[in-house]
């Protein structure tokens, strides 16, 4: 048998291996942020695209040149608006259903919840987004045509519905956890004071779970905001300001994937795509900061 490594050496090896892992992860994250930021900002610094024009301009057309500026049309507002629209609408659709299901599972039928509903939900979490896109394209878009009597049925509404389906399992699971974490003593205290089951759920359980529920909602929004493939399959892919919920449109993410391989590295068109990437990263940073803020505030008031 090999001689056992002396204890002190083992300590040293452990320290350097784990330390190296931390250094590597840190390096990757920093490099990533740096690269995206550097590329994304050079649109404005090197190529001379106006920042305000990027955020407020309504014409996005990388293939044509604006005679006035000599640059492609890089008004990203339609993409930003569409991204926010699908994020907000999908959240509005998914959250009430998720919280409703969580109430049923935690407060009304815990046995059923644990035995059947949660495994089912967990199954849904693992379904790849392309499957949702497929369902969206064949079922939801078709339904849009029939229900609203439109030609294509593509756009923000089917995109939002697909996204709602996709974020539903995550938001539901997190909402269930949030309600479970409410101490039973609160419920008993409330019932003992003459509140009914539903009054207790409304005034005590949901109220004290609000910070965790908010976190669930924002995590859902983060996912919806960043999702690309499934949305791309049903949104229509027209990079213009949508005129309605059933007008073909394009989000930041879908635009990125469509144009990514078209323009040469270093060109204005390529740089501006990095700017979109930077924007996405900034948004997810904001979402995460909100989550931390809620967490910190909750911890403080629990004191």
């Amino acid at each position, binding site marked *: 048998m090999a001689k056992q490594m002396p204890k002190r050496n083992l300590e040293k090896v452990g320290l350097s291996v784990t330390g190296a892992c931390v250094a590597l992860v840190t390096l990757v994250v920093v490099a990533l942020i740096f690269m995206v930021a550097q590329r994304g900002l050079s649109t404005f610094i090197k190529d001379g695209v106006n920042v305000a024009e990027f955020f407020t301009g309504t014409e996005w057309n990388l293939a044509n040149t604006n005679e006035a500026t000599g640059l492609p049309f890089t008004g990203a507002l339609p993409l930003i608006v569409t991204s926010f629209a699908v994020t907000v609408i999908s959240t509005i659709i998914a959250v009430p259903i998720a919280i409703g299901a969580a109430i049923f599972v935690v407060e009304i039928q815990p046995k059923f919840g644990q035995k059947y509903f949660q495994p089912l939900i967990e199954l849904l979490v693992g379904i790849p987004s392309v499957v949702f896109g497929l369902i969206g394209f064949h079922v939801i878009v078709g339904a849009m045509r029939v229900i609203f009597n439109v030609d294509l049925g593509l756009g923000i509404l089917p995109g939002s519905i697909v996204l709602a389906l996709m974020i539903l399992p995550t938001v539901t699971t997190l909402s269930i956890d949030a309600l479970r974490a409410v*101490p039973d003593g609160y419920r008993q*205290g409330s*019932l*003992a004071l*003459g509140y009914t*089951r539903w009054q207790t759920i409304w005034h005590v359980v949901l109220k*004290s779970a609000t910070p965790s529920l908010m976190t669930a909602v924002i995590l859902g929004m983060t996912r919806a905001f960043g999702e690309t493939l499934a949305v791309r399959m049903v949104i229509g892919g027209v990079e213009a300001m949508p005129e309605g919920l059933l007008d073909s449109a394009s989000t930041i993410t879908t635009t990125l994937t469509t144009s990514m391989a078209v323009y040469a590295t270093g060109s204005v068109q390529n740089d501006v795509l990095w700017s979109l990437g930077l924007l996405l990263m900034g948004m997810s940073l904001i979402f995460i900061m909100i989550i931390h803020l809620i967490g910190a505030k909750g911890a403080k*008031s629990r*004191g």
Partner: protein
Amino acid sequence: MTNETDQFLQSVGSSEQGKRVSGVAISDEVILETRDVNVYYGDHHALNDTSLKFHKGEITALIGPSGCGKSTFLRSLNLMNREIRGCRVEGEILYQGRNINTKTENLYELRKSIGMVFQQPNPFHKSIRENITFAPKRHGIKDKDILDQMVEESLRGAALWDEVKDKLDKSAFALSGGQQQRLCIARTLAMKPDVILFDEPCSALDPISTLAIEDLMGQIVADRAIVIVTHNMEQASRVSNRTAFFYMGDMVEYGETNQIFQRPNDKRLNDYLTGMFS
């Protein structure tokens, strides 16, 4: 800590002038009574034929080894067992002479009159003020002046007012465990209940807070009945007028507290009191 101690000593002093519990019966006015109450959890028969009377102005202690059915019995009295899936309560529970163990009884109105305080202090994740106004609001009181008055009255009633009057809008979680428990008593007092049920209210508290709660019980019992489940024999003998001993789902012996502790009849009670088992 010293502050709390001072306040405690003051409150002890003030109640010394009032009536102190003596371990003997003092009243024959029955507020709450059970007749042959049986409780089942599914197939498990947890409590057998228990008949007891609870008197106005008196504290009744329920004692017995862990798992013998004390909490089960206590939860029958305000119909809290109905909130437990699979739990069934049989027999008559008479509140002011009226059987409340019926399908038509309005549980939520009833619980205004029969309050409950739990083992673990369980204030809501709200301000001190909102903890008190929580129940009155449910029962339709909206007037701010009346609510403010209730807050002060209840907190004074629970000997907590002087400690919290300057921070009514602060979170209840900022209070110490003993203060939280007195807040829970205060929010129950706001409903002016005729009966208050305590399920081991001091077992999560330090000795000083425990004495403060015991003292408080002596003060608030005057115009109501109090029932307390306790593991602490000294506490039972200190605070109660009457005591009921439970053993494995049976109510084995009941009597004046002095008698129960000094001249127990049942061998199991005697063994329990002498520490043969717990």
